[in-house]
């Protein structure tokens, strides 16, 4: 095999920009999908059906359909049929946020439900409102419990951002595949792409493992 790694070294600034975009997309998505997930979780836990049902429908739709389809849908269907024109970046983030919010909401909901009723009663017994019990007693414990699950979602998200390359958002995947097309150095470019993803993803996966160990004991 005749390898020429210069294509990688010469394009390092472009790979760098792509990697930054991947990181930026992941952070922007998570920053929005945490409150999004909390809101959906609270809606689903509501006793009012009119509040709970739409949230359930939203979550079940986005959890059960592929992310690539959601991104395509936002990108092609919204402008064509609803006269909503979003930038590629906004499209990418909207698709990712809807998807990750749905997963987060299930994580938060499970965490909130896992806090036993006795904690609610103890909070109420000292005269707290239900909102105070939720905010000061239940939610802090629930968040601590679901931190590992949340971190796992983060790592998945980090890799799933590669799907936005299909709508020409210049993330690491898009940049890599573009360099490949220009240079025809398939092996070198894809290897470099894998190496960069791995270098960024591996420490995150290790961090998740650590979080799992750290927060394994609930009480």
């Amino acid at each position, binding site marked *: 095999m005749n390898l020429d790694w210069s294509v990688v070294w010469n394009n390092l600034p472009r790979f760098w920009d792509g990697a930054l975009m991947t990181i930026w997309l992941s952070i922007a998505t998570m920053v929005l999908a945490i409150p999004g997930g909390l809101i959906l979780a609270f809606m689903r836990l509501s006793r009012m059906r009119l509040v709970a049902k739409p949230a359930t429908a939203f979550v079940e739709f986005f959890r059960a359909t592929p992310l690539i389809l959601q991104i395509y849908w936002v990108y092609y269907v919204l402008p064509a049929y609803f006269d909503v024109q979003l930038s590629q970046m906004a499209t990418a983030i909207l698709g990712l946020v809807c998807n990750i919010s749905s997963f987060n909401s299930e994580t938060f909901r499970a965490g909130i439900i896992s806090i036993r009723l*006795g*904690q609610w*009663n*103890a*909070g*109420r*017994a*000292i*005269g*707290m*409102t*239900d909102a*105070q019990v939720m905010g*000061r*007693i239940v939610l*802090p*414990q629930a968040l*601590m419990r679901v931190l590992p699950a949340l971190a796992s979602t983060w790592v998945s998200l980090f890799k799933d951002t590669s799907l936005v390359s299909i709508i020409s958002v210049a993330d690491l995947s898009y940049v890599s595949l573009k360099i490949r097309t220009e240079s025809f150095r398939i092996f070198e470019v894809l290897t470099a792409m894998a190496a960069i993803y791995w270098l960024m993803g591996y420490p995150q996966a290790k961090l998740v493992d650590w979080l799992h160990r750290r927060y394994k004991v*609930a*009480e």
Partner: protein
Amino acid sequence: MTGPEPKQRRVGGASAPILAIERITKRYGTLTALEDVSLTVNRGEVVCLIGPSGSGKSTLLRCANALETLDGGRILFEGREVHASDPKSARAVRQRMGMVFQNFELFPHLTVLRNVAIGPATVLRLDRGAAERRARALLAKVGLSDKAAAHPAALSGGQQQRVAIARALAMEPALMLFDEPTSALDPETVGEVLSVMKALADEGMTMVVVTHEMDFARRVGDWVVVFDKGRVIEEGPPKQIFETTTVARTREFLSHLGWHGESTLDTAASSSSEAAQHPIDKEEVDR
């Protein structure tokens, strides 16, 4: 009720009761947990509720603290009716009524100090400094000053329950409810919790205690109420319940617990080593 009711001899009986439970009924589906139960608690009085498991004692406490809605009857606390279904009324009651649970239910994510301070800080809106000063004073009172910075998981069961008592006291309640406060404890830590409770009673705190500790009921209680199958089968001063009861079901329940009425009591009372056998007399609070 059975037997003569020496109402005039009850502690605080001269003024209006702080808690009046009037013919309440509570059902869970087809199960009747409480049926037509009436009970009064006077200011400064220690009322002990005894009886077999599932006889409705704990349910009564939960109803009193507005944690359960009623299916009949009413509850008056400080002269006002308790409405569990109205959040405002329920909160007003709970702020004046401390509750201690069988399983402590401390907040595991907070330090011991914050556990005690969180009530005054969030509900009474004391500033952080004032809330924590109050919390420190109460931790000193239950003998746990040195544990202020620890998390509940680092404490023994007895220590956790003392923190839970301090947490309830932090709201400066007019009445304290104890729901089997020593049932989940290792035998060796029961005494330290009972000591704290006895000290509270000696200070004049009004208390309602659901307990299986018959020694405590007999020695600290001013009034004992016996439950069976969701009903009150007998009530009276400890002497009546533990020594002279004529109610067969009360006798049966007590003998199941190894309590053999007068003869045992007489023997115990005449024994000079009696005090040492009773955990509440041990100086364990500051251990």
